[in-house]
Structures are given as structure tokens and as C-alpha cells.
């Protein structure tokens, strides 16, 4: 996981796997950012190969938390197995998903 900030927006890039072992670490890190007052995130999954229900839960939990704070979490770069899991779980219905980080940034900055 690596991150960068573009103005008020934090871009979080996930790599490899987001499952039972790694999802709690992701969620904890996001809580730290949110605790520090950040409320706008783009989570890029272009380099994520694998996601399980634990990974989905960590993203959903973070997004719910942000919604309560009038924040937002957009996703980008879904492909392959990760995209399929999102579709099967109907997560594509509840998240704003963009092809690339620049597209997500443009939408969030509007």
C-alpha cells in the first residue's frame, strides 16, 4: 500500500492481496487518516490481484464511516479477479468506480 495526497484528496494504492490477513491493516490505516481529519479518498485497485469478503468488508466499513462524516471514497482500476468479485458482490452498485486515478480525481474535484 502506498499513498499520495493531491490537495485534500488522498490516493491510496493497494497491491497484491486484500484478504483476512491484510484487510485489517488497510482498515486500521484508513482509520488513522480519517482520525486525522481526512475525508476524501481514492482507493486505486489497479495493482490488486486478489480480494476476499474480508477485503470488501474493510472497504465498505471505511466508506460507511466516511459517509457519516460527509466524506467520500471513490475506487479506480478494478480488473480481473478483483473486478469479478466486486460484480458478484454487487459492490459495483454502491461505489463510484473509475478506470483510472486521474478520472477519479477529476470526478472528485468537481
Amino acid at each position: 500500500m502506498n499513498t499520495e495526497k493531491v490537495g485534500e484528496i488522498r490516493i491510496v494504492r493497494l497491491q497484491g492481496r486484500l484478504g483476512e490477513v491484510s484487510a485489517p491493516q488497510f482498515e486500521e490505516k484508513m482509520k488513522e487518516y480519517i482520525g486525522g481529519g481526512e475525508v476524501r479518498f481514492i482507493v486505486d485497485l489497479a495493482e490488486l490481484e486478489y480480494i476476499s469478503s474480508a477485503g470488501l468488508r474493510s472497504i465498505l466499513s471505511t466508506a460507511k464511516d466516511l459517509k457519516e462524516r460527509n466524506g467520500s471514497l471513490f475506487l479506480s482500476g478494478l480488473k480481473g479477479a478483483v473486478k469479478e468479485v466486486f460484480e458478484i458482490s454487487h459492490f459495483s452498485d454502491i461505489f463510484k468506480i473509475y478506470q483510472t486515478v486521474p478520472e477519479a480525481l477529476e470526478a472528485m474535484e468537481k
Partner: protein
Amino acid sequence: MSGRPVMPERVKSAAEIEKLEAILDFVRTRAGRAGFSRRRTMDLELAVEEAMANICRYAYPGGSGEVEVSCRTCSGGAFSIEITDRGRPFDLFTVEKPVFEDCLSRRKLGGLGIHLIRHMVDEVRYRRAGERNVLTLIMYEREERKTEGSNPRQGETAPHNAHNPSGAGL
């Protein structure tokens, strides 16, 4: 010179989420040797992770127990993974399909594991054998499905073979 190391056909471990990586390593290696593509191996890993997570959380309430995972390639070419625990009875086919609220606030956390298991593998079987839960995940296709997001063998019309514990058809 030594020959190829002999792979264990089964692994047994404490039913703890910390043991998941070792179980997934075992599954990955066995599936790779059985000729599965990387993508289909990940499908299998996902199904096993979800099943293991359920066992670790719910099979032994207030206590601890074991889980055993075994892999085999059947004569017809099907690859099966059997996951066994001695916890409380749990037939995953009794679990209702999750409700997919299209509003973020109303969407429930959790409840997706079994849904994913049933999508990721070609066939799922459950039987209660004495004191054991036996979950069998079967894969026929070793390559990616042609259309992402659909699985013609599985899904809404998943066969429920809980009453066909003989393994016929493998």
C-alpha cells in the same frame, strides 16, 4: 541428487485465522501442480479462504479446534478440496442469499463469504459425517471462464449435493 519433494495430500492445523496463509499455500501449490491457471487458482484460494474464515469464527464457539484440508485429483480430472472440522453442524446451503442493498448506508457488512464460495468453484457439497462437517469444493475448469462475472455451472441453480455424499460423478 534428491527427487521432487513429496507434497502432503492433506494439512491439519488449529482452526485459527493466523494459519490461513499456510493453508492457502498448500492449496495454491496443489492447484498449480494439477494444472490450474493462476486465475483459477485464485478462485480456489478465495473459496478456501471464505470457508476457513467461517470455521475459524463460528465452528468452535468459546473454544478451539482443528481443521483439515485435503486435495485430490479424481480419475475424471476433477480437482477437489475437502475441508473438515469437528465444530458445530453448519450446512452452508441453509444460508440465504444476501440482500444487496444498492445504498451504501443500508448495505450490511459481511454475509458475502458463502455467496463467494458458491460462485468461485464449479460445485460445492456439504455433508455432516458423524461429528464432522465436510465441505467439498470441486473444480472442473482449469482455465479462466470466458465471461467475467458469470459462472454457468454455479450460482442460483447450484446443485445441493448434501444428500449425495457418495462422491458419485467425480
